[in-house]
């Protein structure tokens, strides 16, 4: 069963245009000009139950708008959506009982009272029976190591501590779908990895479906089997992370460190016949770029037997670079395909 189903979803905003200058301001007073901005342009996707899906895109690509429609905050302009069996904006109150929401930039908790008091209040709001609540809270508190924080007021918590509390707040009612909007924004590396581990466990143990938006691609690498990439309100990629890497990774780079000086010409000679590119900073360090069609081992085999090597490092094109180049081109088609199509003039196929 699909936890989230979205079809031809569109959201248009009417934005008031402000004319320039004092004269413009007066003109606006009597006749306003509006501009229609389409934030989400007829997107379609489905997320099966129990999947962790990453939702990425540049600022203003429409990620938050989509999440807000999926969580029942915004009413779509057109299209169909069904989340956990409900149409979010139609049966909002019943629907939200099944979902958890964490907005990285906003707090669910009451600022001035102890964390535990906020949890108690949320228990009442979500109608969680006392016993279930206790069990669940103990489990979450232990898992996220919050024992010492429970009685502190939220305003005295660090961002990392607060974020962990936010997660608990969003999960107290045991939702089957969890929405996270930039959950790791501004957090240090330790807290980030703690939160990632926690989300992975949640997903494994309770089968919680998770949809998260993030700008930190390490979140995606650590958590998501699937990525949906958005650009200017349209989905430009929807599929596995591995597949994305394979399609977009143009090659690998191998760094060599030599024990004794080795000339660039010698290296080129050794790999004669292979379409690789050598470069060197000095005589002890050299880099070779190997396209995807070639086996790394073939190249290594040629070099290893003959050179005095002290260190080898293989670098794959990382997700950061792949994503950056996709953003730049605005299309997730493979560079060759893009170049071959009639879109060629507008989408410049980038090479990393």
């Amino acid at each position, binding site marked *: 069963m699909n936890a989230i189903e979205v079809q031809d979803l569109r959201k248009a*905003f009417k934005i*008031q245009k402000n004319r320039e200058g004092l004269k413009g301001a007066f003109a606006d007073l009597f006749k306003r000009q509006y501009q229609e901005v389409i934030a989400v342009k007829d997107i379609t996707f489905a997320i099966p139950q129990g999947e962790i899906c990453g939702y990425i895109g540049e*600022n203003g690509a429409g990620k*938050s*708008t989509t999440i*807000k429609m999926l*969580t*029942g*905050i*915004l*009413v779509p302009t057109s299209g169909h959506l069904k989340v956990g069996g409900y149409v979010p*904006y139609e049966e*909002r*109150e*019943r629907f*939200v*009982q099944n*979902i958890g*929401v964490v*907005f990285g*930039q*906003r*707090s*669910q908790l*009451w600022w*001035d*009272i102890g964390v535990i*008091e906020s949890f*108690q*209040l949320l228990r*009442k*709001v*979500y*109608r969680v029976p006392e016993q279930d609540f206790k069990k669940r809270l103990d489990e979450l508190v232990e898992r996220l190591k919050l024992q010492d924080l429970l009685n502190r007021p939220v305003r005295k918590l660090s961002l990392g501590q607060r974020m962990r509390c936010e997660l608990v707040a969003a999960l107290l009612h045991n939702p089957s779908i969890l929405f996270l*909007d*930039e959950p790791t924004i501004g957090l240090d590396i330790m807290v980030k990895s703690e939160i990632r581990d926690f989300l992975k466990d949640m997903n494994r143990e309770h089968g919680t479906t998770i949809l998260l938006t993030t700008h930190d691609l390490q979140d995606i690498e650590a958590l998501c089997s699937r990525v949906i990439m958005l650009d200017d309100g349209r989905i430009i990629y929807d599929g596995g992370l591995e597949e994305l890497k394979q399609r977009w990774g143009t090659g690998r780079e191998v760094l060599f460190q030599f024990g004794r000086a080795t000339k660039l010409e010698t290296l080129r000679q050794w790999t004669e016949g292979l379409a690789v590119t050598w470069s060197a900073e000095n005589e002890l360090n050299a880099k070779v770029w190997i396209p995807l069609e070639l086996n790394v081992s073939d190249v290594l085999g040629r070099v290893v037997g003959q050179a005095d090597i002290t260190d080898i490092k293989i670098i794959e094109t990382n997700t950061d670079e792949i994503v950056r180049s996709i953003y730049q081109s605005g299309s997730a088609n493979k560079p060759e395909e893009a170049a071959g199509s009639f879109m060629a003039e507008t989408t410049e196929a980038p090479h990393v």
Partner: protein
Amino acid sequence: MTRMFYYLGLIVEYFKNYMKTRLTYRADFWVEVISDLLFQATNFIFILVVFMHTDSLGGWSQNEVIFVYGFFMVPYAVFSCFVNMWNFSERYIVKGEMDRVLTRPAHHLFQIFLENIDPPALIGGVVGIVIMVISGGQLGLPFEWWTIPALIILTLCAVAIYTGIYTALTSLSFYSDAPTGILPLMFNIQNYGRYPVTIYNRTIQILLTWVIPFAFVGIYPAALFLQREEMTSMALLTPVMGAIFLGIGLLAWNMGVKRYKGAGS
């Protein structure tokens, strides 16, 4: 029914939370109570000053006008305690806190009322009751079996009228980006409802009775207790007006929420 218990339970919870928060800032709590009372006292003194110059106001004696003022204080106190939407536009729309409200399983308007409850305002209601008892005693008003039930029902209806008007006006925030300046204006107009409407000209009477019915919050229902027969039928109309205006308010609000645009990211 379970739904009603759920909401009543929430009122208690939010009330407790308010207390926990506020008791950490005790001084603030008392400052609020005192400034509230001072505000009422200035209005009260104004009535006394008026009656130093005249014996009756449109046929109403000083004690009668004071009684009306006392009655007015009760629904006003309940309204101020539970319905505080003065900073709605800024807090919920501009800062986007409406997002959070909309992801929780209780009615959005109710959540906003609860998040902004202001219990110190209730003290004004107690003062109002005291004023009614004293001025009523001086007027020799009879205390009937229906006095207390009628007081409760009319208070609730008056609160419904208030809530309806302010909710409808606040829901304009969903349509316009800028906070509306209309609420302070309303706040001033509502004061007119405390005086016998017969002292105003015809247009203002109609305005206060049918368009923005603040007369139903003060003078009309109070007239029932003052045995002013010319206004008894109006007093009995209070529940109808309450239902109509609360309905309008809720309708406008629910339509507004559908247009909510969210803020920033």
